């Protein structure tokens, strides 16, 4: 059926008029499925743009897959547009037209596209996404942007609405000469930590760039849009559009992938948390769970299963072990598991936090001292190495160990020999050394901040505890485990937490990891007036919602190791605030302790 030029022109003007008459900002939905198109229209999308990128996003891949040879773009868009979208939505539908194939007869394909019911086209996938000499070679060979300009010109002649993706003022000028109706300033693929696309610009850098790109085409006839880059939600889109004085925004991954992932995640978490609640309420058999999670290392994530496997393999040996992981991930739990799984478990594991003790006292803590070794050393004291003879010595925060002590530790690791301070008599210890740190000790070693020879001795066996955010699927199990303990210790009335509360917990980033989770649950259990912890029980603590759950402990991975003040507080707590005993424990005089307490406002 032939369409007269008047009819063609009328259709184009009608669509443009409709877009111009939109209240507020224009919103274009860049989609790859009928489901998204339909939902976007229901939400008020002003037009639908069918792109191959949308299909790849629905497959869980980043938008930039649209530039790869994993499918002929035009065939994909045709299939989705015709089978799932055209005739099912009333909003104008545009075709994301790939002109990169030089064998393609643009005019003939445009004719078909129009006949199928698409009202317009956009140059997508586009070489405007490409930078560097590869782009230059495409342009030089005549298979780059020149073809896209040809598309816009031919589409205009075909009477279609023309949308031009541009990333520079020169490109905008070329598209203007070809007769584009709508210009979309492309800021590149949407930045996302999930897809790995780095953020090239922030919003404030994007605004002048958009101004610059669209400057040649700012006139009463043009519709100006923006897409991609740092715009990751409606608030940013509105902010940019208003700051730049442009008509609207085209949403792709911000429309489908990001919100869809969040919604599916939350819904799935809802099902999971509900099932946990039901099991808890029914009194599930905890002892069988304890059998399944040996030594209290709880989780089904592959990373935790790997840790359990490593513990099982390494525990019976006397190899030194280096445990890595953020604060609160359970490094001490792993150390205890290694001790419990060894033949040394008849004696208690000896623990020393290298960051909790002032540098000048750490040496005496580790190696012990003889009377007269230094001022105040009135009697012999054995150190942790001797104390841990035949057992396990867990050195936490090993990354904070001073270089001179690193050398001494290396020697003990090599042959078990050391000397007490103030003595030249060699002592021998059969302590198995397990170390832990939250610092990047490999990097420290490469930068000379940690002895490389000691690092290589320690890293004979490394166990890395994953942060909770990387195994968030284990959270319901952990909640169940902690609730059981909390019932016994704090509030016997607590049965479970409700679905909404669980969703809040699942949405939180948990910088303090498992320890933070336990503290949050403990507080909620104390404040909960019924038997089911709800989201409000978290909010009662002034958190509002779980995304702002705070912990009062030093849980943040960026938090520095224990300070002297905390070290003193720990000693005071341990001695029930008996200052003389605390001073003795700390290895300082009572007067020194008093002065320090005064300095830190502990009096």
């Amino acid at each position, binding site marked *: 059926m032939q369409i007269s030029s008047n009819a063609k022109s009328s259709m184009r003007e009608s669509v443009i008029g409709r877009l111009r008459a939109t209240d507020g900002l224009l919103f274009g939905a860049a989609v790859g499925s009928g489901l998204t198109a339909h939902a976007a229209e229901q939400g008020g999308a002003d037009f639908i743009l069918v792109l191959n990128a949308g299909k790849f996003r629905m497959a869980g891949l980043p938008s*930039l897959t649209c530039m*790869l040879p*994993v499918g002929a773009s035009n065939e994909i868009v045709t299939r989705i547009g015709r089978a799932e979208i055209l005739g099912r939505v009333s909003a104008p539908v545009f075709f994301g037209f790939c002109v*990169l194939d030089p064998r393609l007869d643009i005019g003939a394909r445009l004719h078909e596209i129009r006949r199928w019911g698409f009202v317009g086209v956009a140059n997508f996938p586009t070489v405007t996404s490409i930078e*560097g000499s590869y782009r230059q*070679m495409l342009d030089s060979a005549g298979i780059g942007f020149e073809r896209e300009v040809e598309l816009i010109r031919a589409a205009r002649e075909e009477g279609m609405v023309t949308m031009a993706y541009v990333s520079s003022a020169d490109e905008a000028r070329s598209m203007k000469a070809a007769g584009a109706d709508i210009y979309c300033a492309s800021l590149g693929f949407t930045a996302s930590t999930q897809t790995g696309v780095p953020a090239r610009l922030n919003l404030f850098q994007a605004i002048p760039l958009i101004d610059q790109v669209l400057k040649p085409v700012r006139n009463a006839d043009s519709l100006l849009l923006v897409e991609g880059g740092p715009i990751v939600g409606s608030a940013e889109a509105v902010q940019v559009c208003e700051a730049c004085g442009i008509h609207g925004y085209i949403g792709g991954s911000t429309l489908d992938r990001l919100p869809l992932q969040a919604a599916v995640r939350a819904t799935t978490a809802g099902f999971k948390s509900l099932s946990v609640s039901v099991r808890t309420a029914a009194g599930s058999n905890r002892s069988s769970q304890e059998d399944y999670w040996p030594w209290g290392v709880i989780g089904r994530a592959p990373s935790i299963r790997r840790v359990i496997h490593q513990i099982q393999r390494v525990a019976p040996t006397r190899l030194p072990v280096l445990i890595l992981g953020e604060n609160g991930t359970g490094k001490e739990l792993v150390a205890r598991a290694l001790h419990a799984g060894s033949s040394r478990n008849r004696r208690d594991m000896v623990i020393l936090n290298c960051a909790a003790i002032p540098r000048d006292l750490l040496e005496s803590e580790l190696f012990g001292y003889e009377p007269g070794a230094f001022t105040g050393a009135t009697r012999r004291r054995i150190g942790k190495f001797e104390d841990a003879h035949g057992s396990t010595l867990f050195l936490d925060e090993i990354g904070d160990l001073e270089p001179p002590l690193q050398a001494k530790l290396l020697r003990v690791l090599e042959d078990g020999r050391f000397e007490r301070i103030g003595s030249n008599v060699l002592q021998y210890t059969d302590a198995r050394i397990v170390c832990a740190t939250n610092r990047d000790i490999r990097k420290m070693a490469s930068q000379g901040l940690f002895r490389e020879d000691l690092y290589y001795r320690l890293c004979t066996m490394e166990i890395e505890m994953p942060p909770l955010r990387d195994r968030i699927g284990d959270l319901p199990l952990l909640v169940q485990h902690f609730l059981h303990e909390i019932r016994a210790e704090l509030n016997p009335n607590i049965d479970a937490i409700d679905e909404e509360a669980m969703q809040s917990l699942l949405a939180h980033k948990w910088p303090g990891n498992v320890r933070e989770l336990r503290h949050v649950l403990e507080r909620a259990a104390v404040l909960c007036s019924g038997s089911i912890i709800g989201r409000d029980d978290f909010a009662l603590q002034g958190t509002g919602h779980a995304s702002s759950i705070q912990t009062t402990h030093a849980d943040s991975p960026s938090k520095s190791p224990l300070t002297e003040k905390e070290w003193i507080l720990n000693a005071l707590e341990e001695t029930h605030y008996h200052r003389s005993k605390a001073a003795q424990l700390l290895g300082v005089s009572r007067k020194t302790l008093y002065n320090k307490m005064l300095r830190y406002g502990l009096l």
Partner: protein
Amino acid sequence: MPNLGKSYFTFSVVLPQFESDRFYFPCMPKQIHHYELASTAWIAATQGPCFLLPAMAGLDPETVDLLGCLPIANANARLIDCLTAPDWQPEAVEFACVFAADPFYDAAQLVEDLRTANISGIANLPSLGILDGRFAEVMSASGFDFQRELQCLEFAKRQGLRTTAFVWNEQQGIAGLQAHADQLVVHPGGFLRHARAPEEAASAAVDLVKQLQQLSGSETPILLYRHPTLYHELAAATDIADGIIIYADQFQR
């Protein structure tokens, strides 16, 4: 005069609109001008090894490497379609060219499909190795890069396939050697973008061949892709490289 003791390969292409027919150009440089459009039955009777790259059928030989990694075809699907066609005769094909960073086609599936089609060699073409600048960085950040292709080739090698790594620069060449590819092919396309004249690009490609030959200590053959735009400029390179690959479409009538 080409050294006939060396390896010579050519690409064979398949036009999708004629599923039962294939263009095939074998790799005997002395006789290149004799070969024309051939049927599948003819392929079966052909002597000499070739690389099979159906995805780029019909493209201008001079731009095929530029267009290969763009979304104008499903490179691996077309390859598998070709290999599973009822009249498929694999005898002439030594290496199947795959897009080895395809997120929809994991290496295990790819190797399995090649094995089913009696293919014993794999090469990374089309390749993201040609990309550069920020576009390459963004792609790489999402896991689409030359390194991913090498991982696919390494996997294929562990599964017993012979591997050919097409490389565009020194860094990729070294990575290809480290990945223990059975042979490397220096693709001059990467040098063309920076060269002021074709001779300069040809010279850079030859230098890279020599350098990789030194690094490999003659353990790994270093071949040269005789890029259509550098056909004459690379003539001298045939005496240096351990083998030559010619894009046969340039001889298509």
